[in-house]
């Protein structure tokens, strides 16, 4: 009698219960981190961002270029010895300018996103917690601002008050808090009826404490995701302002301004004035968007794959 391999295991051997292994309990943030690391595109996005931070802020220490005085003997040079990415119409080194412009883009992007998110999170949290008439008034204000084309209003204010990194960040930040405000409000509306909030309230927490100890930390997932998208939008907005001529002034540079300089020489075929800068903008914005998508997937428990 031959032995027949049975697919059914013999009795007495214990198996993991169906539904997968049960690991040690980990914190939500650590789980999110693990999920994030599994997403290769997101890690690539993070890598690109880290690269650009190093390139823009560390690069000038390694690569020295004269970005303060013009050099009319070396204008519009194609890439070559001494100038790896060529020079622009005033003889400034493109690679050096690229680093300096990147500093402005990243600084303004992060600062504007931070300003927008702080205003938005507070507005949304207060509105959601207050409820009633205050909530509807605050949300109608958001609706009103959302219906005004963002670029128009930013341009108008920039014409009057901009031209510094701080000014640009403020202008962009002040007009980008609307979407975060809506998202945080939605989150707060679901959170505020939860038991832990009732418990905190019963224990005597005031509204401010509720907001900063219980509501904002729990809405942090939504906020983090939104920050990355806001950074991408802010970088695009700065580039657009710079391109239209309402960005930073000499000795500061921004990427949009550099592109608009290159436009004048489109016909001459000076490609190095356009493609490196444009590619940098696309890469940074894409990296932020990838990061945001991945963060959304990894922080949203419902979408998490095990």
């Amino acid at each position, binding site marked *: 009698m031959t032995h027949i391999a049975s697919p059914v295991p013999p009795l007495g051997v214990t198996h993991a219960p169906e539904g997968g292994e049960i690991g040690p309990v980990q914190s939500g943030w650590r789980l999110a981190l693990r999920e994030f690391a599994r997403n290769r595109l997101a890690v690539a996005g993070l890598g690109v961002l880290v690269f650009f931070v190093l390139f823009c802020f560390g690069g000038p220490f390694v690569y020295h270029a004269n970005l303060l005085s013009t050099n009319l003997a070396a204008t519009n040079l194609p890439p070559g010895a001494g100038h790896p990415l060529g020079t622009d119409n005033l003889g400034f080194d493109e690679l050096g300018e690229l680093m300096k412009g990147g500093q402005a883009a990243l600084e303004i992007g992060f600062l504007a996103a931070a300003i927008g998110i702080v205003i938005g999170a507070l507005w949304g949290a207060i509105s959601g917690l207050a409820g009633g008439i205050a909530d509807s008034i605050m949300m109608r204000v958001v609706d009103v601002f959302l219906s005004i084309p963002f670029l*128009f*209003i930013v*341009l*108008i204010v920039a014409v009057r008050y901009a031209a510094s990194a701080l000014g640009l960040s403020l202008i962009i930040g002040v007009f980008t808090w609307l979407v975060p405000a809506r998202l945080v409000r939605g989150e707060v509306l679901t959170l505020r009826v939860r038991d832990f909030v009732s418990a905190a309230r019963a224990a005597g927490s005031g509204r401010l404490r509720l907001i900063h100890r219980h509501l904002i930390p729990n809405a942090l997932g939504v906020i983090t995701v939104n920050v990355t998208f806001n950074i991408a939008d802010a970088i695009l907005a700065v580039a657009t302002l710079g*391109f239209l001529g309402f960005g930073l002034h000499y000795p500061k540079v921004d990427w949009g301004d550099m592109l608009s300089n290159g*436009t004048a020489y489109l016909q001459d*075929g000076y490609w190095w004035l*356009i493609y490196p800068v444009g590619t940098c903008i696309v890469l940074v914005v894409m990296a932020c968007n990838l990061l945001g998508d991945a963060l959304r997937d990894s922080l949203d428990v419902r979408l998490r794959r095990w």
Partner: protein
Amino acid sequence: MTGYLPRRVGTSLVMLFGVSIFIFFLLHTIYPSPAIDVLGPKANRVSIAVWNKQHGFDDPFIVQYLRYVNQLLHGNLGYSYKLNQSVAALFQERWGRSAYLSGISLLFAVLIAIPLGIFQAVRRNTIGDNVATTLAFVTYAMPDFFLYLIAIQLLALTFPIFGFEASQSTCMLTVMLDWRDMTLPIVCLTLLIVAGYSRYMRSAAMDTLAQDYIKVARAKGLPERLVLLRHLVRNACLPMITLIGLSIPALLAGSLIAETVFNYPGLGLLFYNSLGTADYPVLLAYTLVGAVLTIAGNLVADIALTVADPRIRLA
């Protein structure tokens, strides 16, 4: 439905009121009086004060606001002292060209985005889907003007197939027939809009594909072509209605940059030129028009959705 419509229109009116207050507040803050533009840069303080008094620019905020709204309701959008022309007349000359560029690009974008999204959802995670997603993602991250510059460099200068400047004609018919100069702006703007729409369309189509009625249609033996055409397309298009309404500010901004880069004399270029001369009446009037279009667009989209989708029963 009967209660919904007045309530929805009421919300829009409240928003219009809010927008008008905000725009007037901005105008009042950064351009309190056109006196210096009228009297010239050498005008002394007394004559400016007298002029302000005569023309009511020293009245209280609320009085000036009511006068402004009254003017708006009579179709007066303000007066550009820099161009010495009423804003309404300036807009009248140009709005047709802007409407043509934005409208036709939006139309093409919708006509491309819907089949593309359905194709991506049906063939999801195939090479075609991945290529389309990647292209849309890159285009979405691209500043508008970079795309225009690449297009001009490639298709107008290196290979001179199209013109590098949009049509300059004042006759709408000439502009419409001038495919050589109008192709680049229209195609580029279309691409940018498609990049914004496609991922929503893809996920909408994917949601619809998972519905039971699609399974039923397949189970009863309907050919796949009919399943897609009769059951998928019409349902997957519904979110598109809302999306078009929501994307009006982006569309206006997109046409602003397109008109600037391609030197197309529409409202966007007028706005850009007014930025250079700090012509605030024009700037704020166009912003107001943009906000009104956005509010109207959202209202129309919401109403159209309730008409198109009988499942939406609103009390």
